[in-house]
């Protein structure tokens, strides 16, 4: 990814929009009693398009912003999302994305990892109440929602960052058929 001041502004706008959408919309709607979490999927898309460093930095920044807005323990969301962004970027650097299903599957897998990560960090810091088994349902359904939301998020982010993407496949024009067919 070629990062210019303009692209940096676009990334910041995407992050801001994603966080506001999450806190004002996705966190407050429920499907099957579980709210979707688009932030890990958003960070995965950043990592997939920009690489490991872009993923890690955007994960850290988005996490920091969320913790600031919710006045919750700083650092937890940053730590988890930076790991998710880094892993997504690492995947992009090591493997080719052949199928259009890959971003959605990665969003699902890494959202699962992020939710498990949140749980692990919270448990390490101490949870003063019994934990319901419904947490498992919450984590699994959040991952399933990430699968369905991952693809549109990926397309949206790719469209917004298109000028900065160096490995964007070129649009191949079909050759006009000639009279002789050659």
């Amino acid at each position: 990814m070629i990062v210019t001041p303009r692209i940096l502004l676009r990334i910041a706008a995407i992050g801001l929009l994603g966080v506001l959408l999450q806190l004002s919309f996705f966190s407050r709607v429920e499907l099957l009693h579980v709210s979707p979490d688009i932030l890990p999927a958003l960070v995965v898309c950043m990592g997939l398009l920009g690489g490991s460093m872009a993923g890690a930095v955007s994960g850290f920044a988005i996490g920091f912003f969320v913790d600031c807005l919710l006045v919750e323990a700083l650092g937890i969301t940053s730590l988890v999302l930076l790991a998710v962004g880094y892993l997504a970027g690492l995947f992009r650097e090591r493997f080719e994305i052949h199928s259009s299903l890959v971003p959605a599957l990665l969003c699902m897998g890494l959202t699962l990892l992020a939710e498990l990560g949140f749980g692990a960090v919270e448990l390490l810091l101490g949870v003063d109440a019994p934990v319901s088994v419904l947490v498992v349902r919450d984590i699994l359904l959040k991952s399933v929602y990430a699968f369905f939301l991952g693809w549109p998020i990926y397309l949206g982010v790719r469209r917004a960052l298109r000028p900065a993407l160096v490995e964007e496949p070129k649009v191949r024009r079909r050759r006009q058929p000639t009279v002789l067919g050659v």
Partner: protein
Amino acid sequence: MLALLIVGSFALLTLTYRGSTGLQSGVSTVFSPVQSVSDRALKPARDLVDWFDETFDARGENSRLASELAVVRGKAVAGQEALQENAQMRKLLALDGSPALAYSAYEPVTGRVIARSPTVWRSSVTIDLGSGDGVRVDDPVISGDGLVGRISSAGPGSSQVMLLTDHASSISAKVVPPGVQGVVKPEVGNPEDLILDFIDSTREVHGGQDVVTAGWRAQGLESLFPPGLPIGEVTKAPIVEQEASQRVDVRPYADLRNLDFVQVLTGGSRG
């Protein structure tokens, strides 16, 4: 760079546990108008999704509510009688500690919920009321149905409410009518269930009884919550033997997953 970010995360974590929230408060204050606008703009979309979700639940809910209504009607009649008796008795005894009087010491301020925590491990909402509206840390927060939680942090233009279902929440409560006291704690991940713990096992508690805030006051200390605020209803009270205390399941009256407006009880005797 990666190492720097990881170290940065741990440094932020340390900063939080050392009690520094000035930065967060500043960011929250700057963005609370933006959150308020986005909340209002996204309300129709949220309602649409909620409509789909609620349609699935409506059938089961209908029969449950019908049976609950019959029970509540009976309670309401009994409650009216009890209120009349209570008023007469209080006049006679000149008591000033009734729940209604304690409640009147507070000034309710209505606010709108503008954001909600995305993770199941934290249960908090952001409201568009701040210290400028008289909101202070630890003020009780209620909805039309009952207790919702308390203010965990208050900025100039917005505040965070720690809901009853947050793992750090702990409220002294009592079961009425017997008046058995205990502590209401959440069960992380299950917003429809609270646990009333540390109840004297020799006292009998059964399903359908109401749970309200205890509102204790002793040796210069007092509960953060006024007495008599409805919390929920006992749903399951397992029989325990040879245990010093028992715990029962409580369903909160307030729908903590669909909060749009809440009231903060400002002032009170702590003011």
